């Protein structure tokens, strides 16, 4: 029996923990070769036709394990490039620098960064290096997770569901020829108008850690969980879906305080291990709660878009809409994970 026959220590469909990210990148690029291309050393995924001359480029990145975020959102109308780090670990500045150079079409590059200390610092460094080379770079940090105020962590609200919406909306604005300043301002607007909250039914296992990130009993759930299994607001006995929906939605309504005539986008996200069947049960209840308050759900998104490996659970994101945001949300998009209007 040679070394490659040794069974994996974790029950996952992987070959070796060292190769997880690169092999997944290669597979994604092979499956969608008309849309994106994989580059290795440093690692990034790039829109096949980038750089698009005269267009602001939009890039993002972060630890792997949240697929389809970010690589699955590379393509026309969304991201020009995505930089995957190791699982749950920030990418390094050389990746973002190389991606920035590769996609700059002469109108500058927007970095969309989720609010985690490592991500913020590594993206800042990349932006400095790119500016030294004469590339205009703006960065917007997404911090929409309302759970964090009372959690253990102190680096501020985490960036979660609103990241997906910001990538779609900013990508569309860039495609329509908006300037770097305008696209960055729009990103800030999405962040300011978006709020999220998540929950978990089970933990997840980082391949190189080999054991679950945290422990949850069979009859427990964790409210306010982060996308890396960071502690949330409260651990409690599991409740029916409608009650969980209320517990996820209420903090968003408290924090965003939408008025009774407001329109919102309701995004019900799966954490990786929860089927669509259950996500639609949450969506149905959330829409009913909103309707009873006179808030109209003008746009929706349901599915696993920002995941936490195989964690079972869900998160909910509310984005307050106006005509501009609706316009860019509806604009054509062609990526592995989001595709419409074409």
């Amino acid at each position: 029996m040679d070394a490659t026959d040794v069974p994996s220590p974790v029950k996952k469909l992987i070959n070796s923990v060292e190769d997880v990210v690169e092999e997944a990148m290669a597979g994604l690029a092979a499956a969608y070769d008309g849309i994106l291309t994989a580059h290795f050393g440093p690692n990034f995924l790039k829109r096949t036709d980038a750089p698009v001359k005269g267009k602001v480029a939009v890039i993002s990145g972060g630890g792997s394990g949240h697929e389809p975020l970010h690589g699955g959102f590379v393509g026309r109308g969304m991201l020009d490039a995505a930089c995957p780090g190791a699982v749950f670990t920030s990418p390094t500045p050389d990746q973002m620098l190389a991606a920035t150079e590769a996609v700059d079409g002469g109108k500058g590059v927007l970095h969309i960064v989720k609010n985690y200390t490592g991500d913020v610092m590594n993206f800042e460094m990349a932006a400095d290096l790119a500016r030294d080379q004469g590339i205009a770079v703006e960065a917007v940090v997404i911090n929409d997770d309302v759970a964090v105020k009372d959690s253990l962590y102190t680096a501020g609200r985490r960036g979660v569901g609103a990241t997906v919406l910001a990538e779609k909306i900013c990508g569309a604005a860039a495609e329509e020829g908006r300037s770097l300043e305008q696209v960055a301002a729009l990103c800030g607007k999405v962040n300011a108008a978006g709020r999220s909250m998540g929950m978990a039914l089970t933990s997840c296992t980082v391949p190189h850690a080999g054991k679950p990130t945290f422990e949850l009993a069979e009859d427990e759930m964790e409210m306010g969980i982060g996308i890396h299994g960071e502690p949330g607001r409260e651990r409690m006995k599991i409740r029916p879906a409608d009650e969980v929906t209320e517990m996820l939605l209420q903090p968003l309504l408290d924090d965003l305080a939408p008025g009774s005539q407001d329109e919102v986008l309701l995004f019900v996200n799966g954490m990786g291990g929860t089927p669509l069947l259950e996500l639609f049960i949450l969506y149905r209840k959330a829409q009913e709660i909103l309707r009873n308050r006179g808030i109209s759900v003008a746009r929706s998104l349901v599915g696993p878009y920002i995941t936490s490996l195989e964690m079972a659970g869900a998160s909910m994101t509310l984005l307050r809409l106006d005509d501009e945001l609706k316009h860019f949300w509806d604009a054509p998009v062609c990526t592995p994970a989001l595709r419409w209007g074409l």
Partner: protein
Amino acid sequence: MANGITTATALRWLERYAGILAENKDHLTALDSAIGDADHGANMHRGFQAVLAKLPGLEGKDPGEVFKVTAMTLISTVGGASGPLYGTFFLQAGAGLAGRPTLSPQEFAAGLEKGVAGVIQRGKAAAGDKTMVDVLEPAVAALRKAAEAGELTPSALAEVAAQAQECAKATIPLLARKGRASYLGERSRGHQDPGATSAAYLFTALAETFALQTPKP
């Protein structure tokens, strides 16, 4: 300029620093497992082994280029927050020095001051937050004072190194206000900061470099 910073000095400094990190990587990781995520020793060791591999190719370059290559190597190999922080330190230290084959003691000190300013800007830590800034800021100030005397002597640098070690130890009672250790709140007290510790080794390495290259009278 008998004791300015030549390329050879810069290379020997980095080589010695890589050696000290290799000798102390388990110690750094032990410090980090108490208040962080137990990877500082391994990360710094990996980063400076990568730097070490590049040093032979830098012999014909100037010190500014040596620091820049060091920075770029660190940011792609160390990861986490230490990669961008140490990367920024060397990137800023080498900025504006291109084409200068030898740096005067004052220029070298000024470069390191820029490095410290870069770290403070990147990490947004202030003195007393229980970070590498608690060592870098006073140690570079001491180095600047030594440089103002006209030349960097082995004994002056040994004093700078000793002061850096004291500053690292002085982080033990502090409450961490930045980085992962800050999540521990009061529980961060009673532990020496790993980043401050690895920063102090920079000055140990510098003192040892000068002790070796200056002939005894």
